């Protein structure tokens, strides 16, 4: 069990470094065991260094940097243990437009193997959608869902 934990930890550490560099376009990241001599009880420390910056306490990261780092870690977990579908509810709310685009383009790479369902308010995510559902609630307090035909919407834009 200890060996499997260490083996998985090392794999996750490598995957996280890779997804972080790809999603940030540079920089570095690592996972550290708080107590490497006690694998059954050790905690896990996350360290992130956005491009051009130094490693410093995670608390000093900006709101957008924290979100993007957490997303990179999630995608690393998915690399190790692929799941059939992933559902994200407004995961990009703290990202600036350029980073929303990086996030959405990363999903593009994974969506052939994984169904992605994303709730979003951000145009930069919507433009990559293959399917679009609109949820509305007239004054009646009752929700309705409409499927939006993207091909039709795109042809009217001309």
């Amino acid at each position, binding site marked *: 069990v200890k060996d499997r934990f260490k083996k998985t930890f090392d794999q996750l550490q490598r995957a996280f470094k890779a997804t972080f560099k790809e999603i940030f376009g540079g920089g570095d990241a690592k996972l550290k065991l708080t107590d490497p001599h006690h694998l059954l009880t050790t905690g*896990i420390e996350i360290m992130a260094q956005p491009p051009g910056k130094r490693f410093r306490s995670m608390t000093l990261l900006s709101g957008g940097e924290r979100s993007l780092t957490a997303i990179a870690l999630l995608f690393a977990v998915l690399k190790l243990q692929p799941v059939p579908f992933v559902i994200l509810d407004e995961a990009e709310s703290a990202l600036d437009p350029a980073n929303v685009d990086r996030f959405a383009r990363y999903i593009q790479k994974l969506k052939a193997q994984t*169904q992605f369902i994303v709730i979003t308010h951000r145009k930069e995510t919507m433009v990559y959608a293959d399917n679009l559902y609109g949820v509305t609630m007239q004054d009646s307090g009752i929700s309705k869902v409409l499927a939006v035909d993207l091909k039709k919407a795109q042809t009217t834009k001309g």
Partner: protein
Amino acid sequence: MKLKSMQLVGFKSFAEKTTIDFQNGLTAIVGPNGSGKSNVIEAIRWVLGEQSAKHLRSTKMADVIFSGSKNRRALNRAEVILTFDNSDHYLKPDYTEITVTRKLFRNGDSYYYLNQRECRLKDINDLLMDSGIGQGSFSIISQGNVEAIFNSKPQDRRNIVETTA
């Protein structure tokens, strides 16, 4: 394994029977604040066996039953049906299509169904174990929870490695 479709009625703001078909690739769900988008996600969490009302922004499980609006009286039950395309047999049962149903009445009566046959919560959990989409998995990230991994203590983060191992 893919999500094929879902149907919900009486679940939170979805008073009327609503069907959503899932397709391949990236599906975006959009709409105004308070329209019901997160409620759809919670319906999926709920039908997959979520036992904690807190994870559904509720104080008690009955909160997920439609409790009325300006023009409509409260309903008596919530029901969600989720259908999987299992043609690659990713899930163990020898079906190419698997349907999971959960129903809750206001008096507390609670039912689970697997392919329309009544079952126990344990059967749902057994079905989803090792699928990566059961309880404790990372396949559903709720609103505001992206950064949860940073706010948790180093000890609590063990489960990222333990569930993946």
